[in-house]
């Protein structure tokens, strides 16, 4: 069986802090009865809860608000959203990019 290709070409290693924040947003935006202890950095976000299409929308918007970023349209896929590591790497990258754009303007 072929291994799944990662969505990000070079995902890098996401920061633990970003993953923790994403987990908090995930739990809060979907009103889940989960705590920080339930967080498994290796697991898919929808392993413990059903993640339907509309819930994903809530989660993505909450993430955009939390990190003050906008997902690129082509990155809006369920595969990215459910993979905590890849998602955190992407968020880190977007945050870094928006910060460098802001610095460039100053």
């Amino acid at each position: 069986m072929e291994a799944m290709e990662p969505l990000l070409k070079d995902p890098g290693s996401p920061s633990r802090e970003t993953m923790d924040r994403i987990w908090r947003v995930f739990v809060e935006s979907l009103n889940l009865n989960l705590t920080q202890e339930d967080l498994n950095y290796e697991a898919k976000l929808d392993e413990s809860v059903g993640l339907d299409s509309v819930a994903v929308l809530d989660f993505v918007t909450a993430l955009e608000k939390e990190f003050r970023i906008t997902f690129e349209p082509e990155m809006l896929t369920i595969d990215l959203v459910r993979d905590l590591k890849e998602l955190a790497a992407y968020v880190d990258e977007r945050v870094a990019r928006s910060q460098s754009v802001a610095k460039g303007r100053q």
Partner: protein
Amino acid sequence: MEIPDAVAAGRPASDAASTPLVTLNDLLWLLYLYPIRLLAIFLPRSLLYAFGRLSDPIVQLHARQRKKRAAPWIAQACGVTPVEARRIAGQSLSNGMYRTLDELLLLRPSSGKMLRCTGIDGFEHLEEAIARGKGVILLVGHFCANRIAVRYLAAQGHPALSVHNQSPANRAGGRFGKKYLQPRAVQLQERANPDQVYIQDPDCVLKIMRRLRAGGLAVVQVDGRGGKKVIEYPFLGVPWRVPSGIYEIVRVTDCAVVPMLALGRSNGFRIRFGPMLPVDRAASRETFVSANLPTFLSVVEKQIVENPQEWRLWNHF
């Protein structure tokens, strides 16, 4: 006046356990999916429609119980006499059949030439909505001419992502039809209009969001029933389980919402756009839905009452 139990309760009219192996409906679909589809590759439209006229009495006879159940509902919702309601039920069924024949024309490489649009009303409303730059949801009901209209608009430079049900209710189908013919029919519909997404797709809402964020169009049938997140609301005089996804999308994306109505057949159809709907930007999800759902539904309800014979769902319950 008696409203069909299945409509009022939102449950299937037939019991799945007692579904026969093959029904007349399956045989009609078998004819449609194989010989008629193959003939439709080269037959002129007039001959294809002649097939439709020939099979109409069989379809009407086969659906007589469903028409009987639908008539009181139509009479009440549209304020017409029982005789007129029965006529509308029959006409809706015929139009549904011609819609499936039109879909065969959409499979042709030259399908663009087959679509004769007699006019577009209110196109300025669509242009105004596109100019906002946040994408546009085209709000429609289950009307027979939707698919040909969407294909026509795409050919005119306005492609729209359609949202469909991959496993629609098939009350008249037998076990054979449900297992083998229905998936084939869905496959054909997908070939006729590849720019679509299924509600069963976990990526469904994100795909719509993607299209809207790119400033594009998405067609959403607001009068669908059921789904994972629904709101009970009266529609055409009966309790309706309205899916809430569209309201979530509008709330999150701030897109424009434009009602669209398409009437007719491929040999002559008309598209009408209404003015952008005012969207109440309520703060919470719940208040947003309750503030906007009546507006969205009433627009489509009005379209149905004014053109009942073109709405496909009367005989579905």
